[in-house]
């Protein structure tokens, strides 16, 4: 047989275009529908924006190092903390979580891809569009500084309204086109999140391997499911709130404009109906990662698996019932305050249960102190600290002193860095050998986690004090007489230590990437299905469909009784792979054009309205072509390591 007979013929698409199957290089990445490649792109974007947000906050910390400094202007400070929050949550943490969902969920459930591969690509490119719209505002701010650009609304070009953009500061009267970038950016990111979540739910519910019942799912996948449900029910509230705000800004409607009867408090309710579940959207996947790492390195099953799963679901459910605890100082009235106070305390119970069960998992095990395990144990400590200040907030009258101070900042950074970031980096250390096929060596990872833990405690520990000593958050500077100077310097030094630790993590990752592939299928002697695949996994993941006979299937396959061994199902027809597509990317481009142009339109830049409409037309066209293109597909025969067209 000549090579030609194996050559892959790309499938025809609409408009005489070829589907870019079997391309190589950047075309392959731009048009891929492979969940692993999409996951990697999400991950790279997340790490990139993590650095961007980090640089933003280091500028903030320098400004606050001493009283009455003027290292950056007040307006720039406001823009930095707004973009720091928005970037870290929507462009740092969420894509990193999406990266793990994308890469790991199909592997953990024994599937060859997600349920809707092109929808997955759509989510990725729409996410990229949203990130672009938010951050392109820095470019225009630069143009403004050079004097090339002077929009209506003046210097306020990068969003400066805080990450929760409380009305009415977001209306045209009080802020410039920064708010437009913020509205369109978040709106587009919301579309991406909802689409991705719908996809994950269908994937997890429908594409499980035979024998993998719901109560045998790895906890990370369970948390992915709960998180996805939270996203599809929470994001609509934000989308509508942003839609109303967008109408206020573009068409001067009256949703939040006070002089016309608009109620700013409505924004807060709508935002936190989204915003509180969002907190759990971030923390539940982190808990899922921890629930994978702890059993793997304690060499023991998760303690109380059903209770961990159930408490995750309860947290998700209760997460919708506590939003007003962000608003204890807005004059809710006694009854509402009391109700939300008690519900908030109630949510501490399932959270506590998880911590008990993690301790129970370690108990009686044989703990291997690998880097991911140190992150996981560190997570339990740090998350517990964040949880405690959370309980303190739930007592509403005490919260009246803490709300909007550095105490709150300390609280949510313990939860986000001590919790989410520790878990995500632990997850990176745990899964990067699977993703890259290369194995960690050396001690740098241990040093890094040490610096991260010390740095984060030095940074956020003193912030508790600062808050209780009366320092409000989001202040550009403070008078020398307040006495906040010493602690703030301490915090700044801590922040640099933390940043140094994180930098070491990045260096460690770069070192890893330059190594030879040595990881093998199962470097950790782990428990779940993803470790049965090659490292990195082949494009089709599994050469045959795995058949599951127990929870922690792979562990029992390796170490259990013969009847616990996994089976493999192969119909011998070859593996059906979906075709690649240009149209998700096209839709993403349309969204980016639309968001940027409409934001500039509200700054009075000529012709931008038309370009915005052109963007919408691109989106509509892309969607239509996508639908009529169909999923396509071709077959691969893994045994021969060749594939051919399905004709």
């Amino acid at each position, binding site marked *: 047989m000549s090579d030609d007979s194996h050559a892959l013929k790309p499938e025809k698409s609409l408009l005489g275009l070829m589907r870019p199957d079997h391309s190589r290089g950047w075309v392959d990445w731009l048009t891929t529908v492979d969940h692993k490649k999409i996951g990697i792109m999400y991950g790279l974007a997340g790490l990139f924006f993590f650095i961007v947000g980090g640089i933003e906050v280091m500028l903030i910390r320098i400004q606050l190092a001493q009283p009455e400094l003027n290292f950056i202007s007040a307006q720039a400070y406001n823009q930095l903390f707004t973009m720091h929050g928005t970037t870290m949550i929507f462009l740092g943490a969420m894509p990193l979580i999406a990266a793990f969902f994308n890469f790991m969920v199909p592997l953990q459930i024994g599937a060859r891809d997600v349920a809707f591969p092109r929808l997955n690509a759509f989510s990725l490119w729409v996410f990229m569009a949203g990130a672009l719209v938010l951050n392109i505002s820095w470019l225009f701010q630069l143009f403004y500084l050079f004097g090339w650009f002077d929009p209506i609304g003046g210097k306020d070009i990068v969003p400066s309204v805080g990450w929760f953009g409380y009305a009415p500061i977001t209306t045209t009267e009080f802020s410039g086109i920064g708010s437009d970038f913020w509205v369109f950016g978040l709106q587009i990111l919301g579309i991406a999140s909802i689409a991705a979540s719908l996809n994950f739910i269908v994937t997890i519910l429908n594409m499980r391997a035979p024998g993998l019942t719901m109560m045998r799912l790895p906890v990370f996948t369970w948390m992915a499911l709960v998180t996805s449900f939270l996203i599809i029910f929470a994001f609509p509230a934000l989308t509508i709130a942003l839609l109303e705000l967008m109408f206020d800004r573009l068409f001067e409607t009256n949703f939040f404009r006070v002089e016309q009867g608009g109620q700013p408090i409505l924004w807060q309710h709508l935002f936190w109906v989204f915003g509180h579940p969002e907190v759990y959207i971030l923390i539940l996947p982190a808990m899922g990662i921890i629930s994978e790492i702890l059993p793997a390195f304690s060499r023991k099953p998760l303690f109380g698996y059903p209770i961990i799963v159930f408490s995750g679901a309860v947290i998700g459910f209760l997460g919708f019932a506590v939003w007003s605890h962000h608003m204890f100082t807005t004059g809710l009235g006694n009854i509402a305050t009391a109700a939300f*106070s008690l519900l908030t305390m109630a949510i501490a119970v399932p959270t506590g249960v998880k911590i008990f069960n993690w301790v129970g998992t370690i108990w009686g095990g044989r703990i291997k102190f690998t880097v991911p395990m140190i992150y996981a144990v560190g997570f339990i400590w740090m998350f517990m600290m964040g949880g405690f200040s959370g309980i303190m907030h739930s*007592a509403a009258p005490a919260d009246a002193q803490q709300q909007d101070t550095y105490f709150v900042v300390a609280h949510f950074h313990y939860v986000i860095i001590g919790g989410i970031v520790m878990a995500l980096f632990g997850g990176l250390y745990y899964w990067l050998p699977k993703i890259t096929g290369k194995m960690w060596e050396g001690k740098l990872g241990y040093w890094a986690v040490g610096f991260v833990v010390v740095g984060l405690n030095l940074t956020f520990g003193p912030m508790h004090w600062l808050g209780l*000593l009366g320092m409000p958050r989001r202040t550009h500077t403070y008078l020398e007489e307040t006495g906040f100077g010493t602690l703030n310097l301490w915090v700044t030094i801590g922040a640099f230590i933390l940043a140094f630790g994180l930098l070491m993590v990045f260096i460690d990752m770069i070192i890893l990437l330059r190594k030879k592939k040595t990881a093998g299928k199962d470097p950790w002697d782990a428990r779940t299905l993803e470790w049965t695949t090659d490292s990195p996994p082949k494009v089709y993941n599994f050469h045959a469909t795995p058949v599951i006979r127990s929870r922690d299937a792979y562990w029992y396959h390796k170490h259990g009784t013969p009847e616990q061994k996994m089976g493999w199902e192969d119909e011998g027809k070859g593996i059906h792979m979906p075709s690649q597509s240009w149209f998700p990317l096209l839709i993403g481009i349309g969204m980016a054009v639309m968001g940027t142009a409409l934001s500039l339109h509200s700054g009075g830049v000529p012709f931008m309205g038309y370009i915005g409409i052109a963007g919408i037309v691109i989106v509509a066209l892309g969607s239509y072509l996508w639908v009529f293109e169909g999923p396509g597909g071709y077959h691969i025969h893994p045994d021969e390591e060749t594939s051919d067209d399905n004709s």
Partner: protein
Amino acid sequence: MNRILKGMGKFLGLIGILLLAGCDYQSRQSTFDPKGPVALRQLELFNLTVWVCTFIFIFVGGALAYAVWKYRERKSDDPDFKPKQSHGNPLVEIGLIVASILLLVVIAIPTLDAIWYTHDTPDDEASKLGAWYQGELSEGAETEVLEVVVYGLQWWWEFQYPQLGITTANELIIPVGKVVHVELRSRDVLHSFWLPKIAGKVDTIPGRANSMWIQADEEGHYYGQCAEYCGESHAYMLFRADALSNEDFHKWVEHQKTPPKAPDGGDDWGAWISSVNANPDSVKGDDVLEGASLFYSKTCVVCHAIQGAGIAGIGGPDLTHVASRKTLAAGWLDNRKETNDESGDAEIDPEIQLENLTRWIYESENIKPGNRMYIGSVGVQNGLNTLKGTPNEITEEEARKIAIFLQNLK
């Protein structure tokens, strides 16, 4: 940069002391030093939560530390050892759930009690105006406690006393030991009224009236600050509260109700204005008079009000007794030498006050970026920046003259 280096030295010296004595570390906005019943109750509740959390921390953290130590893999261990694959223990689980619910109940009950206590203005007979206030009151006010309407504005505070007919700015004066009912409002964006030593914060929200009650148990000068992000100069939106003895409070009210003297020293502002109109040159050579006429001609009067002078501008702080205020620019500029005074005894230093007033008029943008006096309010009133290059531009010399005039508004 020098400041950072100097601070570094200070930091290294202090780090040990702070570690030892963290709890004693105080500031003038500290919530650990309550001077009123509301703040006290809030602190007590906070302390309770700290105790409960410490208890849980010792229990869970101890278990975690023990487990991590006890079950670690030692060098001598067989690397392939497989511990017993146990799946959980329902009794332990249920026990822990019940225990955590019980601990939360310990917090929940005092929380509920405190929610009602800190929010509902107490019906305190001794605090009702009829019981202690001797001056003139609005109708029906005898049976009410003192009411202050607080307006949070970008980026300053307005305090109105509807029962007494007084309006002032940035410095809240309250009688010591009396319940004061505070109504919180806003005309622009969200702000939050926070006097840490007296009471926790409540937001001021446009289109809505919030309320709270405060009471200061000790005479003194209290420091407060806006706690809700409200735009560019949020950090510069401070305020002060003075708790005065009954006698001093009466004196203060009387003083507030008396219009300030006209620039020429007389009582009749109208007469002075017509004399200046008749003879504009009569102000020449006298800083107060020149300042006063500049105050009129440079459009200050559009936004600022001076009672008794027939000046009733809206949008900016009422300047009727501006010279009697200890601070300027919403607390950012202090007119006293002893800037950290908490007793309330520190006096205004006229030289510092003059310098502050001059700077504030001449270069307010450098003190409080984005302030309305500088940038104006779009379509309503020009700010000082739009006056630049026009005949109405204020020079530093003119600013000083206006400041001298304002210093007369005691």
